[in-house]
């Protein structure tokens, strides 16, 4: 165990426990707020792995934009303040979800454990990736996927507008 291992374990524990709370809490708004904590934990993990730009973009895009969108959607759909007992899942479904989630985790671990080289696995040499390296990659090797992604974002924007216009026309008799 190294010091970075301990820091990593702490950030990972924050991410996993906040994720668990985000999917199990009864309060609808709290679920979105626990997602913020989970994503900040993931950003810390990514930062410890040495990908600074990815961690910063994660905070900007997810915590800054996606969670705000989710909160807005919760408000626009009149999410109840306080515990939402009307939409609680039954015990059978809770058990099913827990079993499927646990089985998926076990399956992934059984695949990834040999890849990591057993316990505690291969030692990662931390090579911080500088932003200029990332920029050089994006605008040389990955320039066409990058352009396709900008088109995808434009398409998503137009499609979101179109979907909301269709719904507005359908609701007015």
């Amino acid at each position, binding site marked *: 165990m190294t010091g970075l291992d301990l820091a990593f374990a702490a950030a990972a524990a924050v991410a996993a426990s906040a994720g668990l709370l*985000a*999917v199990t809490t009864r309060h609808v708004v709290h679920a979105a707020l626990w997602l913020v904590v989970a994503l900040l934990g993931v950003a810390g993990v990514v930062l410890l792995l040495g990908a600074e730009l990815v961690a910063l973009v994660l905070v900007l*895009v997810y915590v800054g934009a*996606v969670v705000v969108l*989710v909160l807005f959607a919760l408000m626009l759909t009149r999410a109840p303040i306080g515990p939402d007992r009307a939409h609680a899942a039954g015990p059978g479904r809770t058990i099913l979800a827990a079993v499927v989630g646990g089985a998926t985790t076990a399956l992934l671990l059984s695949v990834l454990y040999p890849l990591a080289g057993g316990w505690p696995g291969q030692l990662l040499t931390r090579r911080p990736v500088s932003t200029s390296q990332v920029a050089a990659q994006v605008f040389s090797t990955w320039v066409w996927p990058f352009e396709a992604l900008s088109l*995808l974002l434009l398409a998503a924007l137009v499609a979101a507008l179109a979907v909301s216009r269709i719904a507005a026309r359908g609701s007015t008799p």
Partner: protein
Amino acid sequence: MIHLIGPFVLAALLVGIGLAGVLLRRNAVLVLIGVELILAGALVLAVSISIARPAAHAASSVLPLFVMTIAAAEVVLALAVILAVYRLRGSIDLDTPSEEAR
């Protein structure tokens, strides 16, 4: 120095938790939170693999950035569809059948 098993365990946990959330939730917006957790697990895996095995076309930070962009586009569209459904049906409970199905 970090041992490789740590990121792998975290990725597996996040994907499992996210999948359980997708199955558990009845509110359509909260299903998206599960999807976000699954994508976060994939992100951790992509970053750790790119550090463990640097490739020729080292996509170390580029691939995670692309994943995040696609996830953002997906969330925007999904929320637009959910809001449209809410306006049409007045509810985003995934368990109530629509009027055509009744």
